[in-house]
């Protein structure tokens, strides 16, 4: 598969043109352009309150009551992972994973998805019986069982401890390699963005202010410095 990092033209899975969103008089997104190729992993960085979640919610189609304009093209199958795992407390783990699936083999698929995230045997558990990391793994299973073409994740590991977060990075990497959705990962963690993504973009003043290739071919420490600089952090190292 030819990955077109620039992502222009018909080969892009996601294409956003001149996206504008505002709450009240203040504009939050002031003309965002963004393309994501099929199977491409894009990390979105930006200072808190810059509109990352607003952009993601626009892509997820969850912003009916927000004023704005622009063109958003996304695939039919979109899954969202939120910062909180957002499991229904009154449904079992398996029930949460298969929520909204209409096919007859939903249970079998749900079990397989749970096995993929390492939670075989916990199908009957209630969400409150799981740790924070396990809950977020259920949320990952719930989003991937739908075989999305686009996976949107809004700081999915933000509430986890550092060690669990590292394990989740490895898991997400494996899952994405297996299912190959296009990914837009919102994060405030520069290192998370660099290790996971093929491309990193920085949102600032309602626009894409910086865009860099990441991945194994890139020198991580200089990219890290550049991104921190763009975010207004002057690293001592």
């Amino acid at each position, binding site marked *: 598969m030819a990955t077109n990092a620039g992502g222009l033209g018909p080969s892009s899975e996601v294409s956003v043109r001149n996206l504008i969103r505002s709450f009240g008089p203040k504009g939050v997104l002031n003309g965002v352009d963004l393309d994501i190729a099929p199977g491409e992993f894009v990390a979105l960085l930006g200072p808190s309150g810059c509109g990352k979640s607003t952009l993601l919610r626009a892509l*997820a*189609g*969850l912003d009916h009551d927000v004023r704005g304009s622009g063109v958003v093209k996304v695939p039919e199958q*979109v*899954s*969202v992972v*939120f910062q*909180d795992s*957002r499991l*229904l*407390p*009154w*449904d079992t783990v398996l*029930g949460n994973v298969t*929520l*909204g699936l209409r096919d007859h083999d939903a249970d079998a698929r749900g079990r397989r998805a749970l096995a993929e995230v390492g939670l075989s045997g916990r199908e009957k558990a*209630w*969400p*409150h019986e799981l740790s924070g990391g396990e809950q977020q793994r259920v949320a990952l299973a*719930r989003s991937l069982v*739908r075989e999305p073409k686009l996976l949107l994740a809004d700081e999915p590991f933000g509430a986890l401890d550092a060690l669990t977060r590292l394990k989740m990075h490895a898991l997400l990497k494996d899952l994405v390699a297996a299912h190959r959705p296009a990914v837009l990962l919102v994060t405030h963690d520069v290192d998370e963005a660099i290790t996971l993504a093929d491309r990193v973009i920085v949102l600032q003043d309602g626009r894409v202010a910086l865009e860099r290739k990441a991945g194994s071919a890139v020198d991580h420490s200089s990219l890290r410095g550049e991104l921190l600089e763009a975010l207004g952090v002057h690293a001592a190292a």
Partner: protein
Amino acid sequence: MTTTAARRSATIAAPRPKGDAGTHQGVVVEPHLDPALTSRPDVRPTSRRLGPGKRRRFAGVVGPAALILLWVVASATGLLDPRILSEPWTVVSTAGELIADGRLQENLAISAQRAGLGLFFGIVVGAVLAVLSGLSRVGESLIDGPVQIKRAIPGLALIPLLILWFGIDETMKVLTITLGVFVPIYLQTHAGLRGIDLRYVELAQSLGLSRAGFLRRVVLPGALPGFFLGLRFAVTGAWVSLVVVEQINSTSGIGYMMELARTYGQTNIIVLGLAVYGVLGLLSDAAVRLLERKALSWQRTLAG
């Protein structure tokens, strides 16, 4: 004595290298020499428990049993005049007589039927109205106001009107109970429904749930705790309404049996009626609680 204790606690406090009972930074630690240290059972720091602790079986029976015991003792010692309150054994033998001639079962059956029907219709009406008014703005503006007005009118104040409309037959009795039942069901279910976290609504939207799926998987389970709270009020309310309709104008039922006993001054039958109401109330509340615990087992609460 005190010096030994002091030395022992000093030994415990000394740093112990893990998995190696030898010299550690000049401190010699030999735990096997101190039996108090090696044989010490699993010592945990005890923190104050704020919850009520584990649920015990038959815990609900203790209070009522104590009350009955008090009654027995007071009657046996002559502290309680039987003309004021019959002795427990008189009530028991009265129950035996009434069961033998079939009057108790007959009246109990008709009372239970009235309460059951009223409860059933009240639950259905209350729950349906709550869902309609909780899920649509049109429904809310049409339903919520009238229910609030009904809530402000004591249910029993409606009885004269209901008698004029429906006479004094079963319809009127069941209707009175229904009107008393549906209000708490509506109020609590509605509140539970409106209290569902918007984030779950957003989740349902992002998963592409159908309207029916949303209702079944998110709205109804989310409103269930409120519904059960309403149900407990409703069950109590149903018995209260029952007593009133049966004592005002009736020719059957436990309330009628008591009313008749009053005209003949039969305290024992009155007390028996009260006891029956009490047992029915206790049993139905226990049933609701059992149902609630089964249905809400996903909840992690103080109730346990």
